[in-house]
């Protein structure tokens, strides 16, 4: 039995009913700030009457602000569905059952005060509030919550309601009950009582007490006198464990001589770990006892922990979730954690035009290949895509470095950007794919899956695969050929190189038999693409509003260079600066630079743009420079005068949801 679905209405930012699906085991909630992750966690706490939440109660602000205006009829509603009940659980949760024999729990708050000045609350199981509701059944669901701002030190300190006392009383609950029923004392109580008794007899204490007693007698006479004793209070088990305190020592080797320190001497991060450990210890210690669901809610697991510790802790929780059948729901902003979690356990939150979208990636029905690919490929840097408001996927490092700068230049040239001057202003990420793997990533965003044709009986495997290949690359699909699936509602553009096929010419006496003449496309002479992903361009345009592919003439640097002579000039200058030797290359650079200077002085010169762009490209690719270094240098040099190629502008417009501009 686990929480498989949650429906929320009118709770905080959710003005429309929203449903979240959860999986068994580990669930990682990711997404930008303010898109409802903590609200979902709190909705679960409210539903399950988690002790701290129920203690605090509900605020006016917990009702959605839009519906609050409506006044009396405003209704906050949360309903959770539990799936995979065992036969015993179906009996225990009888009045929670739905027609399909899942269990449902509902809680409703009305925006009117009852006689006790609290919001009117109703909680019921199953489909009807008239059914019997046994609180024992709800209390059997163990829900533990770890807040984001953890004051670990405070909770671990001795005192009422400390973690340690809670852990100890919970672990010994059965024994305690049994002993109390039979009017017996716990071992600890006996020991303390014995010690307490012996305290009185110590000579110094005894003497002090005698003096006090004597003074009383002297003062009020023996008729009115009272007797005193000096010892500790008579302590019950609960009081004793409340005065216990957790200490720590570095390392795990403990011997007679080990010195334990007070927690305030410890680091914030380690105190947090110890705090989490006390909670997990309770789960471990009581795992035999609970037949009903156990849910661990953790807000920002990464708080106060360095990346390696984050990963370690996540792995442990993940193992715990699996082995002890605990449902663990974690919110995070840590790309480290996102990268370390299998993509299908991630639930992605996004916000678009004031509406929240929650997409469990498992529901996107990624095909196996895409899923494996993404799992392999997502690292701490790349998993930023799970937190962004828009993504531009690029092929390589050069684009990744230059694109934010180019976007700035482009946005500055427009006067309708409403103050947006850079991609990070709107949370758009540029993600370096190190290749052309868009088709896998687009599955997170495109919202459709193809229904692949079946192999026919008389068809060879090869023929079938070929047919599938052709099918997959179709430009558009009829109903029945595809199905709609959930998707992350964030725009996603891919920039890819057109890479036209180079011409091969047979040469009789050449040693390889052919030479390759590289393609030199221009705006007036676009060439057919050699990029195997190109089919996606048209397909996505037809099938979704959420994803687009943008292409150039040849490659990124070639296209920057061919865009304008001023672009080319800057690029040539950088190459010139980096050139280790004077020689043919240097001469050619100087020639081009002179021509461009001439042209700037309004003299008629003839430049073969394509030839020059190709030359620049070759230089950038050559050993002394390389695309990465060049991109960095270019990034430092360019300014508003740099001309951004159209395919890049269009991609930016799409992701930022702006109108494209001509020219």
């Amino acid at each position, binding site marked *: 039995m686990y929480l498989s679905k949650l*429906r929320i209405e009118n709770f905080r930012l959710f003005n429309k009913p929203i449903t979240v699906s959860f999986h068994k085991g580990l669930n990682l909630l990711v997404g930008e700030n303010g898109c409802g992750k903590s609200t979902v966690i709190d909705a679960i706490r409210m539903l399950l009457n988690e002790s701290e939440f129920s203690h605090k109660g509900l605020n006016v602000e917990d009702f959605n602000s839009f519906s609050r205006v409506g006044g009396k009829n405003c*209704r906050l*509603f949360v*309903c959770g569905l539990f799936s995979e009940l065992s*036969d*015993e659980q*179906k*009996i*225990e949760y*009888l*009045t*929670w*059952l739905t*027609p399909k*024999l899942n269990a449902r729990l*509902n809680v*409703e708050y009305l925006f009117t005060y*009852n*006689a006790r000045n609290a919001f009117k609350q109703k909680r*019921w*199981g*199953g*489909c*009807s*509030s*008239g*059914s*019997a509701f*046994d*609180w*024992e*059944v709800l209390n*059997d669901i163990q829900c533990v919550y770890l807040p984001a701002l953890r004051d670990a030190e405070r909770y671990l300190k001795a005192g009422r309601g400390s973690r340690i006392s809670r852990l100890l009383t919970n672990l010994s609950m059965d024994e305690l009950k049994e002993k109390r029923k039979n009017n017996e004392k716990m071992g600890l109580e006996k020991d303390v009582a014995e010690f307490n008794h012996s305290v009185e007899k110590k000579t110094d204490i005894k003497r002090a007490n005698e003096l006090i007693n004597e003074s009383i007698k002297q003062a009020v006479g023996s008729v009115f006198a009272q007797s005193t004793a000096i010892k500790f209070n008579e302590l019950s088990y609960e009081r004793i464990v409340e005065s216990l305190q957790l200490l720590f020592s570095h390392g795990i080797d403990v011997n007679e001589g080990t010195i334990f320190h007070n927690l305030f001497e410890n680091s914030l991060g380690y105190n947090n770990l110890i705090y989490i450990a006390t909670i997990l210890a309770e789960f471990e210690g009581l795992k035999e006892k609970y037949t009903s669901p156990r849910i661990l809610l953790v807000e920002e697991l990464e708080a106060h922990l360095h990346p390696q510790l984050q990963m370690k802790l996540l792995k442990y929780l993940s193992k715990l979730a699996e082995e002890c059948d605990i449902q663990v729901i974690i919110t995070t902003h840590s790309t480290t954690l996102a990268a370390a979690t299998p993509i299908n356990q991630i639930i992605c939150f996004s916000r678009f035009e004031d509406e929240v979208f929650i997409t469990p990636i498992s529901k996107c029905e990624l095909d196996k290949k895409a899923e494996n690919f993404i799992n392999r490929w997502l690292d701490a840097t790349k998993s930023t895509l799970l937190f962004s408001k828009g993504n531009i996927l690029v092929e390589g490092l050069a684009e990744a470095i230059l694109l934010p700068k180019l976007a700035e230049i482009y946005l500055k040239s427009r006067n309708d950007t409403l103050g947006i001057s850079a991609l990070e202003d709107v949370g758009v990420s540029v993600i370096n794919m190190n290749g052309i793997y868009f088709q896998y990533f687009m599955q997170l965003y495109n919202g459709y899956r193809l229904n692949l044709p079946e192999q026919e009986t008389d068809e060879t495997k090869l023929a079938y695969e070929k047919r599938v290949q052709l099918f997959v690359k179709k430009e558009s699909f009829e109903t029945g050929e595809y199905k709609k699936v959930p998707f992350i509602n964030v725009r996603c553009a891919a920039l890819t190189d057109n890479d036209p096929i180079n011409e091969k010419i047979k040469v009789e006496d050449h040693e390889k038999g052919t030479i390759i003449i590289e393609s030199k496309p221009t705006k007036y002479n676009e060439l057919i693409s050699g990029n195997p992903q190109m089919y996606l361009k048209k397909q996505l345009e037809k099938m979704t509003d959420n994803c687009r592919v943008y292409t150039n003439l040849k490659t990124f640097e070639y296209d920057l260079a061919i865009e304008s002579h001023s672009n080319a000039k800057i690029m040539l200058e950088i190459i010139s600066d980096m050139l280790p030797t004077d020689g043919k290359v240097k001469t050619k650079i100087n020639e081009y630079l002179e021509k461009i200077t001439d042209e700037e002085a309004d003299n008629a010169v003839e430049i073969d743009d394509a030839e020059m762009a190709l030359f620049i490209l070759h230089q950038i690719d050559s050993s002394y420079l390389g695309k990465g270094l060049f991109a960095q240098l270019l990034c430092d040099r360019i300014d508003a005068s740099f001309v951004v190629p159209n395919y890049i502008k269009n991609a930016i417009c799409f992701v930022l949801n702006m109108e494209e501009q001509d020219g």
Partner: protein
Amino acid sequence: MDNRKLLLNQICGCYDIPEDMKMCDGKLKQKCSVIGKCVFESLTEQQLEYAATDISSNVYLNACPGSGKTEVVALKCAYEIMKWDNTYSGIAIMTFTNSAEDELRNRTVEYLGIQIDYPHFLGTFTSWLHNYVANPFIHIITGYRNKETLDYSFRLIETECTSDFLFSFQTKYSYQSLNKIRANQFYFDLKNKKYIYGGFIYNGQKLLDEMLSKDSWRKKELDELKRDFWKSGFATYEDIELISLYLLQERSDIARCIAGRFPVLLIDECQDLSYIQLQILKCLHSHGTIIHLVGDLDQSIYEFRNIVPDDTREFIKDISMKEMRLTSNYRSNDSIVSASTFLLDKKKYVIGKQEQSVETPLIVLLYKKGEEGKLISKFESLVNENKLNLHNSRIIVRNNSLRNKIYGIKKEKKSVNIIEDYARALFYHYSSYSVGDFQLSILYLARAIHKSFFKSMEHSNSQKLYRPTLMEDNEWWQIINKVKNEMISCEKLRNFDQTWKEWKQLLQQVLLNCIVYNGQKVSPDLGSIRKGCSQKKIKDDIGNDVNENFNCSVETIHSCKGMSLDAVLFISAYSNSGNNNESGSHWHDWFATKNGKVRESNRLAYVAFSRARQLLVLGIPNPDSSPIDIEHKRILTDAGFKIFLI
């Protein structure tokens, strides 16, 4: 170990009956000290045998009147609950009235030390059914969906309800004098496979039967109307039982879960189980639930609700329940037990254990027309002569009409009239004899307020005092209280010597500025006075100040169920009215069994007879027109009665 020691050990923690009560330190020592000896010493072998019997087999405990049944059931429950080790399945202990539930609860707590609680259930059959079967699941059958709230609870509509919204649920065609029938005015009787009419029209059932057998389309219309009613989320009590049964039959997976949740059902007063309730039990039994029935089929007195003991008898046979008996009657002396048994015309196996304290425990008083008052005085002096307690004695009559006649209350018409409801509320307020009368007063008032002030608002049923659903409980109670205080503070309203017309005008004034709801004054619509009544005096329709000349109150047979009374005066109706000679109001019906078969009228008398501890007096009419003859006198003397004139 014998049963006594087994139970003693389990419940009290003792190993043996103590020699000296004062030395006993058992858990029940307080209870024991009240009765002056060990609780377990005072229980009979029969009682102990049942309490210790194996809970995993089906048992029918046939308990004669005064057998200490409730005590045994409480003991049994406590014993089983103590042994119980399942944390989420429990025993459902069911009764038929709230008072029986309270009684059983208190007694069980005495043994158990704690309240009966989760996973067990103690309550009425209806509340159990509604809580664990109907509310959670019948929407599967009815198809009712509330998309807005996702709450599919049904709304219970009483057969008597006449609210406006029911216009949407009436037949398209008229059913002669029954007019258009509304969906809450009929229900399906599964046993006889026919529709039962529950409306106000006299002879309605006969008319409906005739129409249904003549026009086949009518049945279809009623079927569809009912389905529509259900689909909109409404149902009557009878409907709920029927739909619940359908559900259990259709969804054996759910039935299995319910049977798993309540592996044992123990039903007290099992003679009150209806056919359909028995079918529900049968269905759960087929999924593994163990059933214990406790009761006395000879005390089955709800034939007017189609509850007959033969159904239960059949059920007991069907699932081959083991029959156990409690045959010692600790309430009545043996003469009264003999007279009771005489009614049933069967071999006496019950023994009266109560020591006889009066010389003549069985007396017949012959009375003439209009001599009811005299009869009662005579009874009261008999009670005093025999040093019995008047406050623990009752006059028992067959039905409310005779009770009202004695009290001077006029007969109530079946259809509801708002003004009469107000008058009746006031009447019962000033002349309440019991908590029941007080509650009745509030109920009439609540209905009247709802109908005159908040007619257009959807409202809940009588259990919630017809509260409009949009209102909070305390809001509604305040309104009722306000109206009540306004009415009481107007002295003139109390004068029932006025005509309805005069009284209505007065009432209108009193109520005019009475209610403020949502910041707005609401003015009442009292409706019209019943046709032909406007010049009639109220006291002639409702009643006037009541006969207060006697000390013991009057109960109907149905309301005296379960009582133990020092002395009983059981009054027969004066005349044997017409065709329905089995109603049990006239004493002739009490005695005669038909071909040895016990009839409802015999059982009614049996219940009344067996209330008495020491003195049973029958008020038998002796009209001048047809004086009691020798034949009839012989019946009475054969039963053991001594006959006196008053």
